[in-house]
């Protein structure tokens, strides 16, 4: 599949799984996903990742099933919102988090969070998968089922090469 085509199919998969509210803060690793969401008029860009989580919480209570897109640097910003809002109040959403600093291969500012991210997700009891291209559709289905069953967020981690 060509560049951009994976992103389009990924967005198709999210919409087919029932996700209908998209917010977040951009990362270059998902720029094709964001461009596709924007082209469909589905994306509400936010100023900070925790603010995006707040908007997602409101949208969920209004009957939507939200996705929050962010770089993993934003996961740090988001921890209090996840802990004292989504996990506490049982508000599901899908976190689509890019994996900057994976395997220690990135600019220096990404290395610490890139190293601890999987453990951080475990520590916060956030189920997560980091699909390869061929597993993306299956893992979107897994995420949708998981967050509906648990009424809590789950995370799809975006490897640097997923949409490259």
């Amino acid at each position: 599949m060509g560049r951009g085509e994976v992103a389009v199919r990924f967005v198709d998969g999210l919409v087919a799984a029932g996700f209908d509210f998209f917010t977040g803060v951009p990362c270059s690793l998902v720029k094709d996903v964001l461009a596709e969401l924007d082209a469909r008029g589905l994306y509400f860009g936010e100023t900070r990742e925790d603010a995006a989580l707040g908007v997602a919480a409101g949208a969920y209570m209004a009957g939507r099933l939200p996705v929050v897109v962010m770089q993993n640097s934003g996961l740090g910003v988001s921890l209090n919102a996840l802990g004292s809002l989504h996990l506490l109040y049982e508000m599901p959403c899908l976190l689509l988090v890019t994996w900057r600093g994976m395997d220690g291969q990135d600019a220096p500012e990404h290395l610490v969070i890139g190293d601890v991210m999987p453990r951080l997700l475990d520590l916060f009891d956030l189920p997560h998968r980091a699909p390869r291209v061929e597993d993306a559709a299956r893992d979107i289905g897994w995420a949708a089922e998981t967050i509906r069953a648990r009424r809590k967020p789950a995370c799809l981690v975006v490897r640097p090469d997923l949409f490259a």
Partner: protein
Amino acid sequence: MTVREALEIVAPHLRDQICVHSNGYMSRAAFGVRDTEACFYMIGSMGLASSIGLGIALARPERGVVVFEGDGNVLMNLGTLARVASAAPGNFVQLCFDNRAHASTGAQPTISDQVRLDEMARAAGYRRVGRVETAGDLEREIPAVLAEPGPSFLLVRIELGPDGPPGPRITHTPPEMTARLRRALGAAS
């Protein structure tokens, strides 16, 4: 005027609006004055009440949303002043009860005596911005704030009340509050 007195002036004017209250004394005071299925109390995640209200307002543009915040909460999430103004939801009202202090944690001063939060909302581009300093002015202003198209920002200057909480702790569990707000919004359980 204390926060509780201000809320008692606002309460009779509320109908079926979704009311989102920020954490700490704001929620406790409001819970003590008026509690309905359409009331949401954000007991943690300081700063995000306006973001939660924005999400509801965007998803349900026909339903009025009123956010109740203190000055500390507004200052913690100033980006949302910009985001609300930019998205311009007509059904969004933000009431900022400004006592110039973090009352819930011991009345440490904020900086809202030096930085006019209502002027920040105006500069951001809220459609309607007001400021009231007395109970009489709040009584006169609140019907129009709730009735006219937003986004609206009303700064209500209040005094720091007597020591101690202005209302009881919230007795609803957080998952119950999520479920009842979803019922109030007609979302499937």
